[in-house]
């Protein structure tokens, strides 16, 4: 059967999770040999991407993108982070702040495949929809 990048990533996680540094190193080099043997080297990018996702899932880490119209204070960002943490029951949260003048005001939070749109632009669009239909 074909081994998918996702399966390889999960294996890599099992090989390194809660292992001593020397053991992990040994396992990783063995894993690398296996990948080469199975001719999956060109899928390495995908494996790493999947590994990141799987690692986050296992360790309760959630990555969130916060999009704002202007640069916001660290304190506000933290508040948003806390809110996301509460809602997603995550243990740790990694926040990235992006600036997009197009949203006019407010903010948009993207967590995994969920979007929390609290931007002025989103509200204006909702208003437009409510009036025209």
């Amino acid at each position, binding site marked *: 059967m074909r081994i998918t990048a996702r399966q390889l990533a999960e294996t890599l996680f099992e090989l390194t999770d809660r292992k001593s540094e020397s053991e992990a190193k040994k396992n990783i080099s063995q894993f690398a040999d296996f990948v080469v043997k199975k001719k999956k080297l060109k899928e390495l990018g995908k494996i790493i991407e999947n590994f990141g996702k799987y690692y986050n899932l296992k360790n309760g880490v959630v990555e969130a993108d916060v999009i704002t119209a202007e640069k916001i204070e660290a304190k506000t960002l933290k508040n948003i982070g806390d809110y996301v943490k509460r809602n997603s029951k995550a243990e740790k949260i990694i926040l990235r702040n992006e600036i997009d003048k197009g949203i006019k005001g407010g903010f948009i939070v993207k967590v995994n*495949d969920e*979007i929390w749109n*609290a931007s002025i632009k*989103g509200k204006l669009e*909702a*208003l437009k929809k*409510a*009036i025209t239909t």
Partner: protein
Amino acid sequence: MATNEKNSNGASKDFIIETLKKQIQDFKAETATEKVGRVVEVGDGIARISGLSDAMASEMLEFEVGGEKKSSVFGVALNLEEDQVGAMILGEYENIKEGDTVKSTGKILSIPVSDGVLGRVVNPLGMPVDGKGEILSASGGLVDTYYPIEKIAPGVITRESVNQPLQTGIKAIDSMIPIGRGQRELIIGDRQTGKTAVAIDAIINQKGQDVICIYVAIGQKESKIARIVAELEKKGAMEYTIVVIAGASDPAALSFVSPYAGCAIGEYFMDQGKDVLVIYDDLSKHAWAYRQVSLLLRRPPGREAYPGDIFYLHSRLLERSAKMSKDFGGGSITALPIIETQAGDVSAYIPTNVISITDGQIYLESDLFYKGIRPALNVGLSVSRVGSAAQIKAMKKVAGKLRMDLAQFRELEAFAQFGSDLDEATRKQIERGRRTVEILKQDQYVPMAVENQVAIIYALTNGYLDDVEVEKIQDWEADFHKYMKEMKKDILTEIKEKKELTEEIEEKLKKAIEEFRDVYSNGNHK
């Protein structure tokens, strides 16, 4: 005086502004989380999307197309996999890029339906394509009724057995392969055998019969569709007809959706207690479209590379044709699916499937067609399993003999070349058969009312045509109908109203035919 200015609705400017203000004030922008996905792979009319973990099967998805002009294209989720969703795109997929966001709409694919759709040409998403403007509801407003394109067929409790005839206006069909309202009758045959012609004649004949017709073109040449629409318009049949088109240049996804869309429109009218006739032209192309979508979605191929659920694809569609019982509105959907065979092979995969689903088939043959027998109906292979229950009594009475005459003729046909060596009875039988075949010939676009059919078949089966030359049969028939229409209209009306051939009517009919025969032969001898 500006405040007192009235517009056409009689509302003042202030009133409108106040209403708008109020609307804006009352508007609460609620922010809720939305599930979005990202396009991972796109091409050939399908897309693979990551995320969208809450997508439902056959849910509408909205692709946000980037670029200068922001617009959205809809798609339908078909494959729900572990971490991906496979979707077909309904519309232009050229502008969708990898990484575009996709939103789920929470709605199963539905199309707008209203009475305003009558007489229109629409695409499988219910949008008009005939350039006659937007489709409005009966009250003149925007259409707000939506019907899902996939719906579970009506259950046993809600149904009734077929008991009302659906006259196609074609002598051969109405007499020997009768179709009832709520029946599914397959029209099968090679290319160029007149399958569509039979269906179009059936539509034209529904004028004044209180039947709404829906013609669904699946992967057809647009020139052919244009010709059909023009012909329907010429015959005044567009008033009660809806044409749903997915042309040959439309994506396969639209061809796949179109019969279901046509059926959904039919259900809208059936729910109002109306009778509907739906023609699916044709289901072989529908199967091809579904095969394409399925293979692109990497579903495993089966026989002839069709996916495993190809039977269910057609059975669930045709099962939606029904005759509802009185308690459930009494409406009906009659389906005339069309299947194109390759070189007369009815034992191919799709033809056998659809034959087994439908309540009978009308089998058209190219050999007969080239012999000049049009409609090129093979009476031996064509059957109707439930329609005879719905046939009017008068027709039942005259048609029984017709079928027998024809069957005997076919057995004896081989001996016909021996000519004078045959005994009297056999020769007579063959002569009768030749005349029967002649009478069952009928031109395109001239459907015949059932009372006329009864009259001519009565004349035929009772031997009144036996002494007319075979070449002159068609002229005789034409003149006979003219005579009946002008001189003996009361007999026709009586048959039409009583639907029965009582002894009294039969006597009158006999007399009329004899009178006509005398007039005709005298006229010819002069």
